[in-house]
């Protein structure tokens, strides 16, 4: 087993192990949050509208689903992909896998910023769990930048 082995020869500077751990843990937290929101999307209407909050307003808005699929599910797939790639890096030590995961993070950030815009200016209600997702996707983006900065320009 090659857990935690890195191909540092292909990197301009070694990747700090803590950054990769943080990357994996945060992507898992994002996955938990997005999975919860997906489950809420399907189970929520029967559970009702809570006394405080805008989550119901956000989650039932037409922007909460694309083609009948809740956007939270896309989020869950995104976070799971990043998580699995992070774990695969720990398993194989292949820096390319980590770089690929880091390259995905701008997508998550752009999606989260778009949802923030919708919540603030279109739906006019903020959903706590969506804000958590904005936080995790921002952190992943920053960690992705750190990880990418460790790679040499020739690394693909």
């Amino acid at each position: 087993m090659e857990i935690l082995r890195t191909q540092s020869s292909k990197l301009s500077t070694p990747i700090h192990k803590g950054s990769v751990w943080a990357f994996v843990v945060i992507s898992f937290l994002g996955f938990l949050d997005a999975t919860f929101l997906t489950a809420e999307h399907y189970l929520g209407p029967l559970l009702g509208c809570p006394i405080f909050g805008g989550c119901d307003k956000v989650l039932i808005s037409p922007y909460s689903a694309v083609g009948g699929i809740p956007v939270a599910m896309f989020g869950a797939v995104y976070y799971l992909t990043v998580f699995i790639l992070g774990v695969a890096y720990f398993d194989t030590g292949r820096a390319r896998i980590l770089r690929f995961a880091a390259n995905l993070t701008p997508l998550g950030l752009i999606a989260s910023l778009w949802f923030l815009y919708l919540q603030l200016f279109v739906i006019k209600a903020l959903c706590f769990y969506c804000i958590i997702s904005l936080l995790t996707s921002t952190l992943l983006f920053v960690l992705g930048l750190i990880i990418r900065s460790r790679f040499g320009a020739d690394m693909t």
Partner: protein
Amino acid sequence: MEKKIKRILFWFGIIVLVGGAVFGMIKLAGRASMSQTALLANAISASDWIQGNKDSRVFLVEYSDFQCPACKIFYSFLKDIEGKYGDRLQLVYRHFPLSQHANAMLAAQAAEAAGKQGKFWEMHDKIFEGQNTWASQGKSDAEKTFTSYAQSSGLNTDQFKKDLSSNEIKVKIENDYKGGIKSGVNATPTFFLNGKKLPPPTSYGDFENTIVQAINANP
């Protein structure tokens, strides 16, 4: 060989972790977010809106918000329940307009104003059926929509408009709301069956079963 087993165990652990996380989140989303032991604080009174058999010993009290999408879903469930078991239970509607729903209070006032002219339930139905229309409207447009419902129900619209903003109606709705708070209502719809708070039903079948059991226990 040992390396291979370690890798298999490692990935097996990851699969279990992800599977467990999905299961846990589904459970969390579907859990009873409300206490199930709470009791109805305010007994049924003459000021309540009641459908069904008023002599029945089975009574289902609903705390509801006209603008809540879940309440609209339960509105159709309750229509069905009333059709099937209306002769064996009492259905009570109480207002619990949530602050995040801009037109919920106005909708409750419209139902009460119609009630003043003996058409509470008719207006109640129209409001739920038209939820998608008025929920996204501004206050004055929503008021026009409710007035058009009053007109189509054959109500005196001048009187309706007067009652719509009457203090008496606002106080009645607030009393319903306060009674809900006292009974531990923290989401809509919340149901009390024979005074006991029901856990949030997970399906119509589940909801119907609970009611049928109560009916059978109180013939």
